[in-house]
């Protein structure tokens, strides 16, 4: 339980700084520190158990199916890292309180820091590799926020993104590796995985898993060739650098290698990958550090180098090397964090981090200088400090290592690495603290406040104590940690200053002497280095990212060029292709056996008309009015086809819809250009023609294939039940309002929505560009002076009652004969629209006074309520009923609930058509710049006086 709390505390506590910042910076820092301290205390409480070799674990089921559970365990390794994370974290929190300026949003800083802290603790305590992955990625995210904390600095932003990219990529690779590992073992629980060394190393998937996991480790721990992001992350505030980039996050990779050491190490693959990468990193990092003038840059590359050292040790795969690695982790954490904090103090006090601008600080800030010097000497591996101890162990291990039959290579390179390390450490000491005092520091340096130097001082004390009394101070921790790493019996080792004269001592002395010599010649070397062209990691990274983004843009922008013509042609080609691939997936295609109907004369005539009209549409489509007329003919022929093929309802509907469509299109065409420009190239026309022909062939072929074969349909039931169950003889209508009334319910809603959407679309025409365009509209064509010809007015007056009669007839007979609410609705709408057309909008609108919105709504409600009436009666929605009523004189007639439904259809259709057309005509009036008429005709000869509209 307390184990869980240790992990959760930083996360829970992360809300505190955000809240407490209003109470002041001290309160905020105190709250943050308290959280960390509490976690540290909880950890310390576990110490006795851990040191006695116990493994404390806790488990909560989370996603058991996947194998992702909240399981934590605390062994020596976890204890070491958790202590480092929380302990150094606490120091950093204190340090940061003084480091950050008043302008820096401190609350935010502490929030990010605690999130990061929690994630790190999570990594080191997870007993489930999926859970570990979660925390792993969380460190990438929180470090991204921390590195970019000073968001006004471009270096910070870029560094943050680079770190996120590299460590994120590694993390993703590791996900794959972990999943493979989990699958080899059959469990994602670390404690199970750690028991299955043989199984894992025998698996054919061992190498991929190893490589993928190592990718995660190497990126996180900045190992060659992924080391380049770390120096750029140094743009972060120094507390961040000290915490993330020396003490904790970069050690996550190291931690994982240590954690996985029992199951992954010991193979040649492990050795050659890990040890080689570590070795290269160690030497190269140290070499680069030597020439860094930026204090934090120097420390950053030194960190890279030291991480390489530890990696190399783990890579050796021997228990002894592992112990050395563990010990160096502890030592490095102490001196490097102290050094970072010292660098921060120098930066803070002098205003610069450039070694070239520093020197002589010993006199100005003796306390800080002392701390820095001791820590740096430890880094150099000078006795009797702790860095010396672990470096000796490293050199000894290197001495005993053979690399591809070369027994001198590793010792030599290790010595050179140590040599460089000595050189840059002494450079730090000499060029910063010693030498003459300068008078051109950007600020006036003096020792910082206690709160700022106390944390590094504490660490430096540890550096000395461990150096002097390693077995007492660090012995138990090293033992218990190493035991956890090795997972078996500890080798015979001694933590002591003096191991006698051995190769390591010789290598060490050589390194120190060589290092000092190197420092002596540093100036010349440095300028030589500057003249050498070196690959700049950041520039390369930027170029790579820019190239990738560029390539992405090339692909994405060219593909998504906004051309509907392309999108449509792709879609149509895809449809034809997928249909054909399905059709031809089978080798043999049986021809249909259904009898073919004979061709008759009317059918042949219709066919000729259709074909000619279609061809004419294609060839004359630039003239839009012709195009419309011709497509109207096509509609007429299709309607005739419906008549011919026993579908009178379809013919009725098609014809009615056709007229409304024509009216609609004419309304639009009045505003739109009357001609389409000829802008297609011949090749384009040819291509489109080809696509169109293939689509046509496909569709025609498919329909031919269907029509020539027999089938059985569920519609026999509809024919049988139409009258018995639905009370209607028109089976199509009964299907529409009864069997499949739900379709119709949706269908009228589509119509209603279309009208509402059209209304909304045109409603906005009075604003913005459209309104300007309409206000300046020039009516191009010659216009007749006769707005409302007398004859048409009179004729439509006569027609209105007739058309309504027809509408009523079509509505009422629909259930038994062709017709129904939809067609009736269109008939009535067209009759009404005819009034608008003949007598003008103003006059007709004043007389109609219908609420079309309400009509649509009422229609939907009527249909819905008819359906719900059945529900009230205990039947499913839309269950119909019908019966026969006998009235005197009138006789017997049928009443069906479906008529209520059909009434809804009728109302919706009338409302929708009228709303859409009447609203659309508003645009025309705006463009036409004419008065709305109040009289039905321009001049009424029956009236004695001239019409009032003319006088106005």
């Amino acid at each position, binding site marked *: 339980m307390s184990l869980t709390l240790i992990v959760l505390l930083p996360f829970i506590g992360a809300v505190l700084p955000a809240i407490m910042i209003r109470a002041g910076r001290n309160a905020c820092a105190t709250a943050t520190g308290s959280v960390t301290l509490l976690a540290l205390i909880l950890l310390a409480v576990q110490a006795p158990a851990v040191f006695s070799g116990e493994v404390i674990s806790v488990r909560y089921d989370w996603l058991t199916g996947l194998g992702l559970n909240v399981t934590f365990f605390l062994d020596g390794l976890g204890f070491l890292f958790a202590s480092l994370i929380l302990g150094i974290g606490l120091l950093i929190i204190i340090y940061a309180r003084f480091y950050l300026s008043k302008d820096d949003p401190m609350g935010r800083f502490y929030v990010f820091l605690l999130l990061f802290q929690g994630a790190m603790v999570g990594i080191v305590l997870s007993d489930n590799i999926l859970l570990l992955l979660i925390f792993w990625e969380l460190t990438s995210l929180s470090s991204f926020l921390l590195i970019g904390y000073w968001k006004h600095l471009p270096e910070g932003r870029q560094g943050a993104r680079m770190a996120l990219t590299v460590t994120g990529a590694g993390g993703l690779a590791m996900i794959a590796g972990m999943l493979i590992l989990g*699958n080899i073992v059959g469990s994602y629980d670390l404690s199970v995985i750690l028991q299955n060394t043989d199984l894992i190393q025998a698996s054919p998937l061992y190498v991929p898993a190893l490589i993928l996991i190592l990718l995660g480790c190497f990126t996180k721990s900045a190992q060659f060739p992924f080391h380049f992001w770390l120096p750029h992350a140094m743009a972060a505030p120094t507390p961040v650098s000290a915490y993330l980039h020396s003490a904790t996050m970069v050690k996550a990779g190291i931690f994982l290698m240590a954690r996985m050491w029992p199951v992954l190490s010991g193979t040649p693959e492990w050795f050659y990958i890990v040890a080689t990468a570590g070795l290269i990193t160690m030497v190269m990092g140290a070499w680069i550090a030597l020439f860094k003038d930026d204090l934090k840059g120097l420390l950053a590359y030194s960190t890279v180098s030291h991480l390489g050292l530890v990696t190399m040790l783990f890579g050796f795969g021997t228990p002894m090397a592992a112990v050395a690695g563990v010990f160096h982790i502890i030592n490095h954490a102490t001196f490097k964090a102290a050094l970072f904090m010292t660098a921060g103090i120098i930066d803070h006090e002098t205003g610069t981090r450039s070694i070239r601008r520093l020197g002589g600080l010993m006199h100005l800030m003796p306390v800080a200088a002392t701390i820095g010097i001791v820590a740096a000497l430890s880094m150099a591996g000078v006795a009797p400090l702790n860095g010396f101890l672990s470096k000796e162990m490293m050199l000894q291990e290197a001495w005993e290592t053979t690399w591809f039959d070369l027994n001198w290579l590793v010792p030599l390179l290790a010595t050179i690495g140590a040599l460089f390390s000595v050189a840059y450490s002494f450079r730090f000491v000499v060029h910063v603290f010693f030498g003459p005092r300068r008078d051109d520091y950007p600020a006036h340096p003096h020792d910082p406040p206690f709160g700022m130097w106390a944390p590094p001082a504490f660490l430096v004390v540890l550096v000395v104590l461990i150096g002097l009394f390693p077995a007492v101070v660090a012995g138990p921790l090293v033992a218990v940690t190493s035991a956890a790493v090795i997972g078996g019996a500890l080798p015979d080792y001694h933590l002591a200053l003096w191991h006698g004269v051995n190769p390591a001592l010789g290598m060490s002395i050589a390194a120190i002497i060589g290092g000092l010599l190197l420092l002596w010649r540093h100036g010349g070397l440095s300028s030589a280095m500057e003249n050498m062209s070196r690959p700049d990691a950041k520039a390369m990274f930027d170029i790579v990212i820019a190239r990738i983004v560029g390539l992405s843009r090339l*692909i*994405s922008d060219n593909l998504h060029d906004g051309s509907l013509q392309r999108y449509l042609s792709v879609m149509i080609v895809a*449809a034809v292709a*997928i249909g054909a691939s*399905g059709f031809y997936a089978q080798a043999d*295609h049986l021809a249909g056996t259904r009898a073919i109907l004979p061709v008759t004369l009317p059918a042949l005539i219709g066919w000729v008309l259709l074909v000619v009209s279609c061809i004419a549409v294609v060839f004359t489509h630039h003239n839009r009015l012709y195009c419309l007329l011709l497509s109207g003919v096509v509609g007429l022929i299709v309607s005739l086809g419906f008549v011919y093929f026993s579908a009178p309802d379809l013919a009725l509907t098609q014809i009615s819809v056709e007229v409304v469509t024509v009216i609609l299109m004419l309304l639009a065409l009045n505003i739109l250009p009357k001609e389409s420009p000829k802008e297609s190239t011949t090749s384009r026309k040819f291509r489109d023609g080809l696509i169109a022909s293939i689509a046509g062939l496909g569709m025609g072929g498919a329909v031919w294939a269907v029509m020539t074969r027999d089938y059985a349909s569920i519609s026999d039931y509809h024919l049988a039940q139409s009258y018995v169950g639905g009370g209607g003889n028109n089976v199509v209508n009964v299907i529409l309002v009864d069997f*499949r009334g739900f379709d119709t319910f949706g269908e009228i809603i589509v119509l209603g929505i279309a009208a509402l959407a059209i209304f*909304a679309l045109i409603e906005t025409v009075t604003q913005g560009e459209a309104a300007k365009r309409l206000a300046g509209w020039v009516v191009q064509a010659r216009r007749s002076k006769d707005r409302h010809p007398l004859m048409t007015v009179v004729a439509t007056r006569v027609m209105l009652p007739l058309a309504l009669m027809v509408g009523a007839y079509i509505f009422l007979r629909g259930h038994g004969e062709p017709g129904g609410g939809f067609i009736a609705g269109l008939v009535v709408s067209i009759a009404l629209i005819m009034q608008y057309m003949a007598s003008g909008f103003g006059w007709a609108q004043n007389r109609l006074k219908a609420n079309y919105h309400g009509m649509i709504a009422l229609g939907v409600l009527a249909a819905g309520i008819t359906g719900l009436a059945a529900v009230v009666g205990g039947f499913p929605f839309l269950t119909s009923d019908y019966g026969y009523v006998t009235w005197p004189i009138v006789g017997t007639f049928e009443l069906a609930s479906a008529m209520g439904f059909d009434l809804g259809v009728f109302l919706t259709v009338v409302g929708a058509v009228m709303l859409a057309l009447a609203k659309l005509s508003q645009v025309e009036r705006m463009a036409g710049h004419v008065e709305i008429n109040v009289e039905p005709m321009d001049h009424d000869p029956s009236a004695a006086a001239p019409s009032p509209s003319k006088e106005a």
Partner: protein
Amino acid sequence: MGHWMIVPIVLPAIMAALIVLAVRHDIVLQRVFSIAATVAMVAVAVALVVYASGHGPEMYALGAWPAPFGIVLVLDRLSAMMVLLTSVLGLGVVVYASSQWDKRGKHFHALFQFQLMGINGAFLTGDVFNLFVFFEVLLIASYGLMLHGAGAERLKAGVQYVVVNLTGSALFLIGVGLIYGVTGTLNMADLAVKVPLVTEGDQALLRAGALILLLVFAVKAALVPIHFWLPGTYANAPAPVAALFAIMTKVGAYSILRVYSLAFGEGAGDMAWLAAPYLMPAALVTLALGMTGVLAAKRLNGLIAFAVIGSMGTLLIAISLFTPDAMSAGLYYLLHSTFAGAALFLIGDLIMARRGEQGDHLRTAPGFHQSGLLAVLFFGAAIAMAGMPPLSGFVGKLLILDAARESDLAVWIWSVILVTSLMCIVGFGRAGSVLFWKSASVEGQIETGETEWPVLPIVAAGGMVAAMVALTVFAAPIVGYLDATAAQIFDTSGYIGAVLGPDAVTASDGLSISEMTGVEAETDTSEAAAGSGQ
């Protein structure tokens, strides 16, 4: 289940009609009606999910006509869950829109309710042609909503959206027509029974029809190469509408998994798993291309739109594996990606509203009001979309990766998913850096008048992020529900039995599915048939 199944469809329809009839001139009352209806829908949907998790599939025979002759609704775990997802998302969207978006044009709330009706109908229907009708309802409502408030860019994108979908509708009819022309039925369960019985000579036509239908669903699901409509549409739709559209792509995905596991799944004889060979490559390319678009984006809305495309790729990778594990993982990812996409669009809108003329252009500009809070929300939604922990995207991706390991294409699937995750991280990292960090190095602050704390929008957007947190925290019960859902999807006999009665199950060949999935049919089919309201 009584008549409750019909509520998610009829309630919004009636409500939309009432809004148009009674309160179309009063925006406040419209909001009250609309939000109240959506809250009620959430409540009903919760009840449906609870019910579905305790019972097998159930049928509701509209008009009391027996299947396959009438239209039936089918409530099972899957459809109930989708309805709940729609309702919850809808609630967030309507709350967001009620702050002011709904005033920018007419009939927002009516169109919105109709849209919900269409989506719910598509999820609940058990009839292929009725599915077409609901597709059209949800599409035309989406046209209205997408064009809400007009504006040149939006109108241009709207034309493309509408035309592409009209073409899609035509293809839908062709596909359904061919299926009917061969099998003589429209009912999905009946189709499942009849597909394996189709004689060899007729199979080619059926296959062609089914694949054209697949293409239509893939258009809705924004699968490459028919995804082209999505970037422009989503990027130019009003934010709440774009957020609601997050579920529209899921309608496509849902239809694919429903139809091609029920009627063209294990029991389909020669046509078993018809869709898989087409879907998988397309899904992989979709994911890759989506995330390429994320990297390439120069505007925030484009970035989000492409991320949505990518997430559809991920989802369809899972679906096209057609295994119970992958299906469960896919459904989890479906839930997650719906909220992630919606959250991003809402947050993007809040950012855009405060950036004035800079809009959603990803270029250096001065800071803006409330950028701190928006940064937090953006960061949360972005890591969710990228599949980074601790939000549900990570869990979803892990589930999918884990489920894909048995596949022949496992290496491809893993590589594409992981590499594209990195692309997504980089893309969102760049965007966030430009929006929230770079502004710090620019003098001044953008003043747009948007200085008030947008309470309702923040609640809505925050709610989406919170939903993802909930998905993560309650992953176990949710995945448990989804595992059973996946089992139910693969146990087609349960569905068929519920719709057509137990006799139909024995008539069909698709019996061995429960053996394959290792899950017993939970359904007492006779009880289900009895309770269908007949």
